[in-house]
């Protein structure tokens, strides 16, 4: 078996970026409803990022809402790709939240997603691992957590991450590697 460990999410195509620009033009011309297309198009990856960073669905929803409102209010300032621009708004909001909140516990509560696993033992193991991951993720410094979430939870390529975070692939690889080391050490610490 020749498996690799990661999957990637492709960046929007040039056509998609052009289509976004068309929508922005319509919104700026007064079509508020057209903004809904952008929300529909990008809310899922942004929500996942906020969820991965904060660990709380409620906080992720609030961050998403505040970020889209901010994006709407400043739509005339978009230069380049809308998805990258709005991602940075969400990413900054997550970092601000992490800075301001005293974290005691994070939880992917209200997890009503269907499970592909069948036996109660497997489900228990999986829940335990999820809880452990949440705990370990919550202890990572925000830059490492961000890199880990983007790579492992969102499944982005290093190139895409570099574009979104405006840094180099090499720097991000280092952050992800350090995040993995720290995460593994934290998991070991819990079980030691």
């Amino acid at each position, binding site marked *: 078996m020749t498996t690799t460990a990661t999957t990637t999410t492709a960046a929007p195509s040039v056509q998609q970026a052009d289509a976004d620009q068309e929508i922005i033009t319509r919104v700026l011309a007064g079509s508020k409803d057209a903004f809904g297309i952008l929300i529909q198009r990008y809310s899922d990856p942004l929500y996942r990022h906020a969820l991965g960073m904060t660990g709380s669905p409620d906080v992720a929803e609030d961050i998403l809402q505040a970020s889209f409102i901010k994006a*709407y209010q400043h739509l005339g300032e978009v230069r380049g790709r809308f998805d990258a621009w709005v991602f940075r708004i969400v990413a900054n909001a997550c970092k601000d939240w992490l800075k301001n909140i005293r974290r005691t516990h994070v939880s992917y509560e209200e997890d009503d997603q269907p499970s592909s696993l069948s036996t109660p033992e497997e489900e228990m193991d999986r829940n335990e691992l999820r809880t452990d991951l949440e705990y370990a993720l919550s202890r990572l410094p925000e830059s490492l957590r961000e890199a880990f979430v983007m790579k492992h939870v969102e499944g982005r390529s290093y190139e895409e991450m570099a574009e979104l975070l405006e840094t180099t692939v090499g720097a991000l690889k280092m952050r992800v590697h350090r995040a993995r080391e720290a995460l593994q050490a934290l998991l070991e610490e819990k079980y030691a």
Partner: protein
Amino acid sequence: MSDETPGAPQPEKKYRKTPPATPAVQAWLDGDQSRDELGTADEQETAELWARINNEAASLRTRHTPIHVQSRIMSSLPDVPVVNEPLAEPAKKMNPATTVIAAIVILAIGGLIGFMLVR
């Protein structure tokens, strides 16, 4: 009180430390090489742990924005899309006169230090 018999074999710990991720394991996690290329048993053990972590992380990738959130955002949008305040604080520009004065002061301090060192 402990009911363990002295000298009796200790129960096996549930977890033993997984070996740290070697560069080969990191390369596998980065998608740069296949798992078959991990040579040692330790690397395979670490890969097994990370396969489970990846599996869990990937399950979060299927999460969708709750349906009510999109409509909540739309209903809370203000009427006007563009405001005049810039999203980011503009970089502060230094007045040219201030720049010249600052340069003179720095040069003077440098000259003074140089003079004192020479003396």
